[in-house]
């Protein structure tokens, strides 16, 4: 099959984009999931979509390709371009523009009327034969499902009418520019921006994880299932699991997104990373069991981030932090960064954070950010203290006590 810039399914390109963007150290022969030719084609496509952001390095092992972007310096997520690369047939694009044009000229039409108009239009071209009626009918149904057209019954006939837009899109320019980057499924906002004569380009985004955009199709299916309270079958890492999706957990510091699910078979809450989900197929509507909402709220009040489950034991953790005079910012940090638990003043220079959580090990990275100020650390899970202490000792050895210790 001849090479094309366009692709049929988005799933295939996710892995390559992720690898070029997150890792960027792999050479061609390390992409072993598919053939070398596949790699060449995907790399060429990505280069075609995102050429401005691609970098190359030649080293002893060969050439490396990577995507490097300071997402703070750009007004829009460049990875959205990949969503604009869906392949189509010549007939798709012919019908798209002619159907929308015909309907905006003549208003509602039956399938017979539409076929007549199309025959008339397409007779100007070589080849001049119109598409068959079933193809046009199928396209009209597809466009009705997308919301581009509406169907109306007039007598015994179905008429197709262009959907009317009453929304003044121009008034959405700044909101679309902002929420395209700062709300879930922002790629849809970027589609709306494509409709504007001019984009509002004066927002910038700090701590902005653009990679989450690649999970948009999965996320959209999950939101839909949450809204309709449907079970979903998730395909991930070679498994299939039937679960009730409850909430999407978005990391603003980790670059990861998770879906919190409840399994009816195991009565278990668990988190699954959305970038590992290949597909989410909606199943039956599921009646929320009595008491589940209260149990969910209780579970969430003891979750630090995205690990743990309702079968784990709650662990108690306490960290005492030193903050001297003029160091109130340290206390403010504790207050604003704690996700559960409490902060109490112990004396004039010490504050204690304490919480009961399902998985205290998940807190280790946060605890380490207070290195230099921790005057007390206790946890009912002894492994947490042991790991913290062991890691700190390694760190101290790594940096040594003199200027030549790190080499």
């Amino acid at each position, binding site marked *: 099959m001849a090479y094309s810039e366009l692709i049929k399914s988005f799933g295939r390109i996710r892995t390559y984009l992720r690898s070029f963007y997150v890792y960027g150290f792999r050479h061609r022969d390390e992409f072993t999931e598919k053939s070398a030719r596949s790699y060449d084609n995907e790399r060429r496509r990505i280069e075609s979509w995102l050429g401005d952001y691609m970098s190359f390095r030649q080293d002893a092992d060969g050439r490396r390709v990577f995507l490097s972007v300071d997402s703070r310096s750009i007004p829009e997520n460049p990875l959205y371009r990949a969503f604009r690369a869906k392949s189509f047939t010549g007939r798709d694009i012919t019908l798209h523009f002619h159907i929308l*044009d015909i309907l905006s000229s003549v208003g509602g039409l039956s399938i017979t009327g539409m076929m007549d108009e199309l025959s008339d239009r397409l007779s100007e071209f070589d080849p001049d034969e119109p598409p068959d009626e079933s193809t046009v009918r199928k396209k009209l149904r597809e466009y009705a499902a997308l919301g581009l057209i509406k169907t109306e019954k007039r007598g015994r006939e179905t008429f197709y009418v262009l959907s009317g837009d009453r929304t003044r899109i121009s008034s959405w320019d700044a909101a679309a520019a902002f929420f395209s*980057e700062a709300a879930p499924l922002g790629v849809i906002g970027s589609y709306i921006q494509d409709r504007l004569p001019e984009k509002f380009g004066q927002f910038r985004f700090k701590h902005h994880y653009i990679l989450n955009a690649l999970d948009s199709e999965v996320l959209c299916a999950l939101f839909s299932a949450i809204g309709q309270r449907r079970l979903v079958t998730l395909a991930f890492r070679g498994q299939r699991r039937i679960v009730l999706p409850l909430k999407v957990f978005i990391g603003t510091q980790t*670059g990861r997104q998770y879906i919190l699910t409840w399994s009816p078979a195991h009565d278990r809450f668990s988190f699954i990373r959305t970038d590992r989900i290949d597909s989410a197929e909606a199943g039956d509507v599921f009646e929320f069991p009595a008491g589940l909402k209260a149990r969910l709220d209780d579970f969430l009040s003891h979750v630090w981030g995205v690990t743990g489950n309702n079968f784990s034991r709650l662990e108690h953790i306490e960290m005492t932090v030193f903050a001297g005079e003029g160091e109130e910012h340290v206390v403010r940090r504790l207050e604003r960064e704690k996700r559960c638990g409490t902060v109490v003043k112990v004396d004039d220079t010490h504050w204690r954070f304490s919480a009961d959580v399902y998985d205290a090990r998940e807190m280790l990275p946060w605890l380490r950010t207070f290195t230099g100020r921790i005057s007390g650390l206790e946890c009912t899970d002894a492994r947490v203290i042991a790991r913290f202490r062991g890691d700190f000792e390694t760190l101290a050895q790594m940096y040594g006590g003199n200027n030549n210790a*790190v080499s």
Partner: protein
Amino acid sequence: MLFHEIYGSYYLAAAAILREAVRGKLTGRELQSLVREHAFGESLMTVPDGLKGGKWRLMHKDLSTPLENEPSMPLTTTEKRWMKALLTDPRIRLFDPDMTGLEDVEPLFTPDMTVYYDRYSDGDDYADPGYAARFRTILQALRENRDLYVLFETGKNTRPELVVTPYYLEYSEKDDRFRLVAAGRKRRWTINLSRIIECAFAYENRNSRLIAAETDTVVFELEDRRNALERVLLHFSHLEKETMRLDESRYRVTLKYDRRDEPEMVIRILSFGSAIRVTEPERFIGLIRERIEKQKRLAAFPTDNAE
């Protein structure tokens, strides 16, 4: 359906080209320029050929088209549902979008479906009418290229008054805060919106030039244990970076960051513990070492609670 050709670059390019063709103003050169503007790097090899003639049957070789109207496409249901979802977001108060036509639309998601689990809890107060008014003044100044008078409170409780040329509104997802990035008095200003007390259009435009933010580089080696490679690279993925493999489990990462964010960078690097070893620059190593030394003096980890 998010991944669909109706949103695609080829359709966008075709619509822009056909718009000009309907107006009778299309030239071959313009056709090529519209493809370059709306489509991809290699699209010039396919889009013009597809459009002109029997393949897509939208335009004749003489660049005329049988279309009677400039192409336009109604909003899709998915787009409307996304817009409706935004109306449930507290930040929508900062904007003033037209809601007509969205009355009977189901939102694609609602705030209770998402949890920003590691977001700081002292974000901006979007419900404050004064905040929203100041935000809108800044937005208008950005649209109309107007300078702004601002009075704000600094972290040290001083209250400077300035006339600045606004350049961007910067939003941090982690902090849930907006900042105004502006130029004035020969320097670059980044002012938290929540600290702005007064904000109005200036009497005259000075059009001060924005000086680029000063950047620094930190280089560290990374030991890939407990999935540290992925955690670290994802965590820092929003920065300009380069990663090199040193051996089977060790990598060298070079990160570029805004110099004013250095304390934050120190903390973020420390959060990975001994999985990361900073190797350059010496000044940054000194900052890490300082915290380690302070911690050693505090001796906080009781041995009786250990394994």
